[in-house]
């Protein structure tokens, strides 16, 4: 007999991983190793499946063969039933990984004639375990014995012995039990199996059903105590341990563009943080989806993967509509970078939505997730649940470094900030779109209500949908406040004409100066010319004068010659 527990007794309770998605996380490792676990719940809540998956995963992932002892379904039924979940039991049985044993008890065939025990069952189970070297055992649903064997005293004593025996065998066992009226199981099995009790539940609220799982008890181990939604789909069981997550995710300093240049500029010119949560809220028809589509397109252009949950439009309709503002999403869908998931919010319960979101995100591994819009979840007075749902989604996406963009519809009566299903505290960047009614027009305005960790613009921008996408216009502040629409256009025109006028004036001034300069220069030229002519005249006169002086002297000389006077005296006098 193996006593595997003893070795690591001082450290921690040894655990057997179930391989069931999410379950091992909430139980910090799986089921208690070498001990029986009770799984209880009402009809159709997935007990058998849990057991089968425990064995299949054990056999395929952890190399631990298992024995499935069924008290209800025959081996053939079981094989067919779980084949729809992708488990090929026949193959596993053939390879000696799993043994199926259907225990058939027919009350009418049985006659009790005195004392007996269930030793034969032990032998049978023991033989199956030994022939495979099984580490895992599932007994589904052992309570059926109570219907077949009338002597309850013997049965109870034998069951107690059975669970003890399973422990001694060192196998990790799952015992399933139908839920009773006031007890966890109809026959009070929890009395015997007390190491670990897991309750499965299938509840219908507001016409939508949700499966939930709760660890009622787990001796010697910490575990999540909440009710966790779980999902049974074509890949089996998955539990969502979302609320067990702390706020310890890694943060990124990387910035990613919103796809709208002007919006990026409002956010320090860089856009959102990667891994942040963006909320776009606004009234109907304001362009929330357009902003989301821009973001999606920009991400696809960067080669990132985008998962777009649309809760109100069909993907085709959305793509067509976005085409009208020049956003082509279809090529990205074909390239496999963009994936749409169109689900009506009312199709599942909230928990199921969470589960589905998880599943798709894990499958598609997107960089960006868009939920459009989130407030369709709020049907009735489930606001608290919606908030927890979104919180879980936000947490989940943050942990995975996925940037999330939610859109939220606010009704025009209640004002903006209050109306957003109470998730404002979860949001990192919040863009508020609002309609501005002025001069008989309804125009769109956008501002960044908050943006954690960046110096965002405080401006309200006018937001225009053009045939080449969303554009943000500068806003004109007039006497009556912000000007939008045609008032803005008028203002723009006014300013444009002013600018034009001013430009014109400058031009003419420039021309005048040029002209004046010309004038001045021509004047200078004429003056120069005048001066030059006067100068030359003067020179000429001077020359003539000198000529005359010369001539006079010559004349004097000649006269002196003729009078025979002393030339030298005369000459000196003249000098």
């Amino acid at each position: 007999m193996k006593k595997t527990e003893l070795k690591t007794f001082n450290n921690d309770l040894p655990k057997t991983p179930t391989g069931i998605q999410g379950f091992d996380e909430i139980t910090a490792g799986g089921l208690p190793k070498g001990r029986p676990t009770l799984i209880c719940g009402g009809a159709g809540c997935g007990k058998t499946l849990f057991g089968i998956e425990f064995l299949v995963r054990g056999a395929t992932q952890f190399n631990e063969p298992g024995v499935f002892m069924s008290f209800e379904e025959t081996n053939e039924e079981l094989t067919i039933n779980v084949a729809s979940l992708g488990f090929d039991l026949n193959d596993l049985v053939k390879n000696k990984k799993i043994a199926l044993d259907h225990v058939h008890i027919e009350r009418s065939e049985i006659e009790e004639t005195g004392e007996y025990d269930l030793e034969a069952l032990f032998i049978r189970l023991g033989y199956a375990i030994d022939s495979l070297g099984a580490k895992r055992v599932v007994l589904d649903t052992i309570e059926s014995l109570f219907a077949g064997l009338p002597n309850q005293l013997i049965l109870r004593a034998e069951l107690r012995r059975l669970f003890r025996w399973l422990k001694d065998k060192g196998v990790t066992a799952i015992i399933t039990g139908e839920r009773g009226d006031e007890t966890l199981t109809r026959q009070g099995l929890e009395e015997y199996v007390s190491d670990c009790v897991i309750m499965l539940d299938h509840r219908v609220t507001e016409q939508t059903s949700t499966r939930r799982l709760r660890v009622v008890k787990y001796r010697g181990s910490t575990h999540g105590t909440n009710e966790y939604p779980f999902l049974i789909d074509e890949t089996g069981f998955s539990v969502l341990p979302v609320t067990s997550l702390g706020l310890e995710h890694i943060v990124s300093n990387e910035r990613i563009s919103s796809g709208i240049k002007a919006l990026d500029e409002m956010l320090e010119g860089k856009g959102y943080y990667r891994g942040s949560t963006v909320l776009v809220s606004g009234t109907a028809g304001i362009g929330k989806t357009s902003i989301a589509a821009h973001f999606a397109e920009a991400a696809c252009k960067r080669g990132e993967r985008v998962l777009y949950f649309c809760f109100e439009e069909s993907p085709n309709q959305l793509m067509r509509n976005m085409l009208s503002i020049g956003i082509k999403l279809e090529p990205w869908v074909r390239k496999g970078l963009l994936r749409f998931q169109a689900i009506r919010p009312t199709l599942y319960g909230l928990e199921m939505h969470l589960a589905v979101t998880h599943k798709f995100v894990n499958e598609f591994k997107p960089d960006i997730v868009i939920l459009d819009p989130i407030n369709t979840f709020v049907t009735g007075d489930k606001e608290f649940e919606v908030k927890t749902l979104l919180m879980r989604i936000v947490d989940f996406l943050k942990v995975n470094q996925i940037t999330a963009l939610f859109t939220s519809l606010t009704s025009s009566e209640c004002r903006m900030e209050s109306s957003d299903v109470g998730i404002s505290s979860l949001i990192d960047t919040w863009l508020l779109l609002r309609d501005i009614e002025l001069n008989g027009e309804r125009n769109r305005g956008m501002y960044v209500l908050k943006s954690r960790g960046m110096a965002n613009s405080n401006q309200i921008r006018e937001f225009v949908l053009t045939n080449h996408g969303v554009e943000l216009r500068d806003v004109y502040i007039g006497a009556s406040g912000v000007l939008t629409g045609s008032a803005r256009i008028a203002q723009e025109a006014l300013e444009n004409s002013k600018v034009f006028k001013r430009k014109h004036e400058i031009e003419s001034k420039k021309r005048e100066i040029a002209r004046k300069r010309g004038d001045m220069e021509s004047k200078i030229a004429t003056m120069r010319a005048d001066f030059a002519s006067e100068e030359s005249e003067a020179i000429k006169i001077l020359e003539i004068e000198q000529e005359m002086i010369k001539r006079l002297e010559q004349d004097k000389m000649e006269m002196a010659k003729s009078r025979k006077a002393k030339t030298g005296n005369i000459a000196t006098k003249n000098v």
Partner: protein
Amino acid sequence: MKEKKTKVKSSLDDLDLTVSNQGKEQYILRLYITGSTIRSALALTNLKKICKEYLEGRYELEVIDLYQHPSLAKGEQIIAAPTLIKKLPLPFRRIIGDMSDKEKVLLGLDLKEVKEKIDFQ
């Protein structure tokens, strides 16, 4: 148990006799026990006594120790020990316990009202 299989009594292989309507059917019985416990021994003793009294000369009893043949438990759908299986005559019956309640054993073997009983075979 000392013996693995004990053929206590083998009677005529006469099919006509087994299907006859005279309360003379051939009984084929199998007793599954789990080792030589007191309960096993008690069951065997009680059963032998009953057989001798009611089925003298027309029964076949096989005693099987499940510890020796664990695989048989699955094939025969046995969970309790001791279990006596009445293979023939029909209807198929399981009689569990140490056979100390003689009335119930007889009821299980369809021997109680053997005179009025109409055989379905």
